[in-house]
């Protein structure tokens, strides 16, 4: 098969812009999803039945419904009640709410892996529950769950391609424009390589950490 990359002469800028939109949407959504995930994880292990219910409902609802429906909600749904967000914002929020549910599960597993004595020791030293959580438990929990969080970030980068469906000028959208006039196969192969440039190093990093930590036991 002959590859024909002549589309780059015309569309080079689109691909560069797309690449950086994909990266920046993913990073913004990463930060937001970590915040949502941490809050939901703490809710899910709280002693209050109501808070626990809220956390569980959030996690189960968002991870069992398609991300595209969530993105459509922020895009078409909010527009139908006269709230118009930018496509970048729609993408970041949609990705963050969806990924937040998976982050919450990973972080919860981390919190539960911290020995119970840590919380008791922190509380008996006079810290409040929230202080103990923030200063003692969460830093240890996060360290343990970096690999699963990394995997979720890889999924997030891949899922950011959903922006293309709402014409969000991301990497995949650049491809969708270029295939109108150029060789379809070459365009998609090129874009696939650009995605791999982001995801393969991340996945090697995650693998490395997983192996190193499992050796330490």
């Amino acid at each position, binding site marked *: 098969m002959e590859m024909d990359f002549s589309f780059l002469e015309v569309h080079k800028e689109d691909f560069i812009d797309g690449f950086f939109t994909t990266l920046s949407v993913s990073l913004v959504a990463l930060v937001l999803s970590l915040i949502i995930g941490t809050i939901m994880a703490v809710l899910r292990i709280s002693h209050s039945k109501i808070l626990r219910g809220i956390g569980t409902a959030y996690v*189960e609802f968002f991870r069992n419904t*398609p991300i595209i*429906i969530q993105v459509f909600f922020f895009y078409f749904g909010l*527009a139908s009640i006269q709230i118009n967000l930018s496509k970048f914002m729609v993408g970041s929020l949609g990705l963050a709410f969806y990924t937040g549910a998976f982050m919450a599960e990973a972080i919860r597993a981390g919190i539960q892996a911290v020995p119970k004595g840590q919380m008791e020791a922190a509380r008996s030293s006079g810290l409040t529950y929230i202080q103990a959580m923030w200063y003692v438990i969460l830093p240890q929990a996060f360290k343990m769950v970096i690999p699963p969080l990394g995997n979720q970030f890889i999924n997030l980068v*891949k899922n950011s391609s959903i922006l293309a469906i709402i014409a969000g000028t991301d990497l995949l959208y650049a491809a969708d424009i270029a295939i109108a006039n150029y060789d379809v*196969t070459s365009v*998609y192969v090129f874009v696939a390589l650009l995605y791999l440039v982001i995801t393969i190093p991340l996945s090697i990093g995650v693998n490395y950490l997983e192996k190193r930590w499992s050796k330490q036991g």
Partner: protein
Amino acid sequence: MDFSSVLDPTHWSALLSGLKVTLLVAFSAIILSFIFGTILGVLRYTRIPVVSHLAIIYIEAIRNLPLLLIIFFGYFALKDWGVQIPIALSVIISMTVFTSALVAEIVRSGLNSVDKGQIEAARSQGFTYTQTLWYIIMPQAMKKMIPPMVSQFVSLLKDTSLAVAISLPELTHAAQIIYNSKYNATIPLLILVSLIYFVINYCLSLASRYLEKRLAG
């Protein structure tokens, strides 16, 4: 917001035929990716030179790409090559290509979790390598594989909604057609459709948890 549109019986029949397409595509892709994923996973596990390397390259490249890219490729590139197939079939192929790579990883880590001593013991009893794999290793590995496999299939079912981008007449697409023609019905319909996805996926997740508990005992 117009919640009454959700109750309109003509809309229900449109959504129902969308749901049928969703389930048909998901079910076909689940069966196919289970078969191909298992073969790929075993090939990677066996470490046959060349063959297992090809399996590694396939698995690592495909699972680090966005599914939507593969769906677009399956649709537009096949068309460009002159292959005429229905949209539903192109989506089934794309989803199988993608999910097989993820199933392969689940199969491999399941196989790896079985103690190597089991192979040696079986071989010294006169089993061939293939017999050992089939009768001794696989049944034990299966237990480990079921929960992640089910959550992979839940993802697949959710992700069939991405095919809305190429106008596959599935559930999300059916909802889109209705709310595009009806003022103020967007949010109610998106909520209704996410509840449909939720019920199906939540039941699958519960079934997986039940299986996990039974197999652990």
